[in-house]
Structures are given as C-alpha cells and as structure tokens.
C-alpha cells in the first residue's frame, strides 16, 4: 500500500475535499486502479459530488464478504468517466449487526438492479431503494448465497426419497 500522500495528491481526491470535506478515509493506488474508502453515511453525498465531477457511469455495485472480520461487508462501487477516460473504485465497509447503507439510486438509476443483487446475495439493505426485492434467487429463498458462511454444496430438501 502506498503512503497516504499519494492518494491525497490525486485530482479526484482534491476535488472531493472541496465538495465533501473529510469523506475520503483512505485508499490506495494499486495496479493502476484508484480505490477510495468512504464512510457509509457519506456515500450518497460522495456519489452526487462524483457524478457532478463527470463520473457519469456507475459500472457496477458489488459486495465482498470478509467474514469473520468486522466490519464484515465491503460494498464496492465502480465508477467510470467517459469524458476523462478514468475509472474509480469506492469501497464502503458496513458491519454485520446493521448491514444497511443509503441507496445511490437517486444518483444513477443503474444502481437499481446492482443493489438488488447485493441485497439478494449478501443481505445488505439499501435505504430508500425503490424496489428492494430479490432479483436472481426465488422470492421465498432463505439465506444469502454469496455470504461466506453459506454452504456451496448440500440441499435443504432431499429429492432422492420422494
């Protein structure tokens, strides 16, 4: 991990300091990719500021489960600016006791399905999402399949004896 100064000198972080002071907790520049760590309560403001800063595209929202570490869930946003040909990754950590974060649907409508997928697969709730329902799994499914404590193999029901 590079020293903190390197991140602070990047253009996007300096622009963010102007509009959203103190929202960047840290981050790193590795393999040519810039990652910024943002506190969960600031995500909506940061995304608004970044969209105004030409990040017109939300490429994806996903989650990494760092079980049994806490805060357990790392929500990852991939942003892209076509005009500047730049990519940016936002990383937000939420704990397993309150896996909840503001939806960025008001900023990009593209967040709709991505956030539903994270809700479906990891059980992270998005506040103010217009339709937070399961998207890939059946609606009566129990559990969140991509959590690390969810088994890969095994069946809840045995079909062999039926």
């Amino acid at each position, binding site marked *: 991990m590079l020293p903190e100064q390197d991140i602070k000198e990047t253009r996007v972080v300096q622009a963010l300091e102007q509009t959203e002071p103190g929202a960047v907790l840290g981050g790193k520049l590795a393999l040519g990719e810039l990652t910024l760590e943002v506190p969960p309560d600031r995500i909506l403001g940061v995304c608004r500021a970044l969209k105004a800063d030409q990040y017109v595209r939300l490429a994806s929202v996903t989650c990494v489960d760092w079980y049994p570490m806490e805060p357990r869930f790392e929500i990852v946003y*991939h942003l892209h600016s076509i005009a500047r040909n730049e990519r940016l990754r936002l990383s937000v950590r939420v704990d397993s006791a309150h896996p909840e974060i503001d939806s960025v649907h008001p900023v990009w409508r593209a967040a709709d399905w991505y956030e539903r997928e994270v809700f479906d697969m990891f059980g992270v709730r998005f506040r103010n999402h217009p339709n937070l329902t399961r998207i890939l799994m059946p609606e009566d499914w129990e559990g969140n399949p991509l959590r690390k404590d969810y088994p890969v193999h095994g069946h809840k029901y045995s079909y062999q004896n039926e």
Partner: protein
Amino acid sequence: MSDIATTAAETPAAATGKRTMTLNMGPQHPSTHGVLRVVLELDGEIIEKATADIGYLHTGIEKQCEVRTWQQVVPLTDRVDYLANLSNNLCYCLAVEKLLQMEIPAKAQWMRVMLTEVTRINSHLVWLGTHALDIGAMSMFMYCFREREEILRLFELFSGQRMMTSYFRIGGLALDAPRGWRQAMERFSKLMPERIDEYENLLTNNPIWTIRTKGVGYLHLDDLLDVGVTGPMIRAAGVAWDIRKDEPYSSYEKFDFQVPTRTESDVYARYQVRIQEMRESCKIIRQALDGMPEGPVQADAPHVVLPEREKMKTQMEALIYHFKIVTEGFAVPAGQAYQAIESPRGELGYYVVSDGTNKPYRVHMRTPSFGNLMSIAPMLENRLIADSIASLGSMDFVLGDTDR
C-alpha cells in the same frame, strides 16, 4: 425474481375507472432469447409499465468460482455469456494476470485479439439472425447460422470445442495454434466481408425492415448512460466510446480500426452499428493474420503455466511444477483488480479479489447484458406492444450473461 402475480389476469377497475391488462411475456416466449420474463401492464395496445423478471438462468457461477483454483475458473467463464465465450475467457485471464503482474508474449496477445474478434462476429451473427427472425425476415437466420457454423468449426480447430472453448488460460493460450489454422482463418477472412454484403442486400434498404426498425426503441443518450447501458447501444446514440480504443488491452493499440457510431439511437441505428462492427472485426482479423508475431504462446512463469510434456520427462523441476500446479494450483498475490473489456454486448468487467491463496476470494462479473437489460422499462413504456419485440431484440442480451 419479483413478487408479481403469476397469472395473466385483468386487474380490477381502479378508482379512476381505468382498466389495464397484465400480460406475461415469457419466460418461454421465443423472442426473449432465453428465459426472460417481462410483465407488461397494457392499456389497449400501449405498454403502461414493463417489469423485467430475471434469475431463471441463475446458476451460482460466482459462488462456484470461490471453491475452485484460479485456473479452474476459466471453464466457468465460458458458461457466463455462452455466445461470447472467448471474450469472457479473455476478461477473466486479463484480470488475474493483472494481479499476478504477468507479461504475456506477443503471439498470445495477437491470437487473443484475433479470436475475440471472431467471437464478436459470431455473437453479432446470432443476434442478427434471431433479431431478423423476430421481425419476420426468416431467411436471415439461415444465412447467419451458415457463417456461424464456419466460426464454430474454427473454434473447434483451435480448441477442440465448438462453444465452451476455454482456449485462453492464465498465462497465455491453452495450446499453440493447430496445423492449418492460417489457411482456415485466411479463408474465413476472405469470405466474411462478402457475406456481410449479402446481409446488407437483404436488410439495409428493405422497406419492411426499415419500417419496423426506424424510429423504434428510441432512448435518449442521458437515459442510456443513467441506466447503465454500454456497447453498441451507446454507440448508436452517438458516443464513440469503445474500451478497445480508450483502455486498450491485449495490444489492441497496435490495430487500426474505426469505432462505428450513429446518432439516431433507434433499432435501425443499432443494426447499422453492429453491421459496421462486423466489418471492422474483419479488418482486425486481417491485420492480425498479416502481422502475427512469432514466438511462444505462454508466459515464462513456471509456477503458473504447465510445463511442456517433453520437459517433464527430462527435467526434475518441470515435474515438480507440474505436480504442484495440478494438485494445488498457484497462489495469487492478495489484492483486487477490475478488468474491463469490450465484449460484443458492451462493457464486460471482471472484479477479482484475492486473499493470497490458491482460490479466488471473490469474482464478480459485471456483465453487459445485466446493465443493458435495465433499459427495458424506459424503452418499452408508453409505446406500442408491437414494437416491443424489435426493441428487445435490439438490446442483444444473453440471459446466461444476465443471471450468471
């Protein structure tokens, strides 16, 4: 899958006295190209509300990636977008190679470019054939699948498989190119531009085709960007954004090609963009054939790439590496990488997280179909139900790609 009533039934008259009908399109509708269910709220012939219901092809590929070694994930990526297998192979391999900071030999890079362009033509041919079939041009399907058969034979020649190729591996290619590959590719690269002329003769100025597609499925560029659409649909709305040009990977910067764009942003413009893309792909294949470098097709990384058979019989180290790679795989340095490529459908991105072990900690596939399919509601709503088939076809989604 959402909680919408499963039976098609008339909703009770609302307080306003307005009556709408709920119609299920799919999941077994032939024009949805897979198992997509769209729930349409109809007011006469106008679609008031369109809700896409996906997940019927969800196979848990991302979860399965977490229990396989890095190299064993490659065959899984074939099954994500089953019409653009090699694009998925490439994207995953590039992401892992980024984490490994591995240098790939020039010949392997050029081979990858050439074969992903063949994949692009393959995918566009299936799109063109089925899209035209939906609209009623039935013979197009036969012509497109005639050329697709040639492409599948090429894939079989290279990898031994017609569809699930797994030909790109972490560190290069699975095998060196087979005997006779150059003649086969030469034949294909000569044949394809003429065949594209044939398709254009059939469709481009065809009055029925133009009436069914011009001005249909229009979406403003801002809407497209906002809902996360990528690829030919964005280029048909006037943005010359192509990841091959803007963030070149696998030595695309060495190739000379155009990024076709249109400004109308309707079904016809998307058709024109994809036809032009096929022509540009032919040009790239031609350049790759003319300038194909010599040399190895696998990186010089003995802990990742399987040793040659001959070396295993004569060298102790090669035998040890072979045993280690086959039994436990190889470790990838801890970190995260996002690699985006221009797949036939748009931005394909693999987000790969490693915790330093021999298995991926997390693989997320940012698939183009998932992003493009989100435009279903703005594209269908307040428009005629008869145009919905053409609009859906112009998105060119693959449900395996959407649901993973």
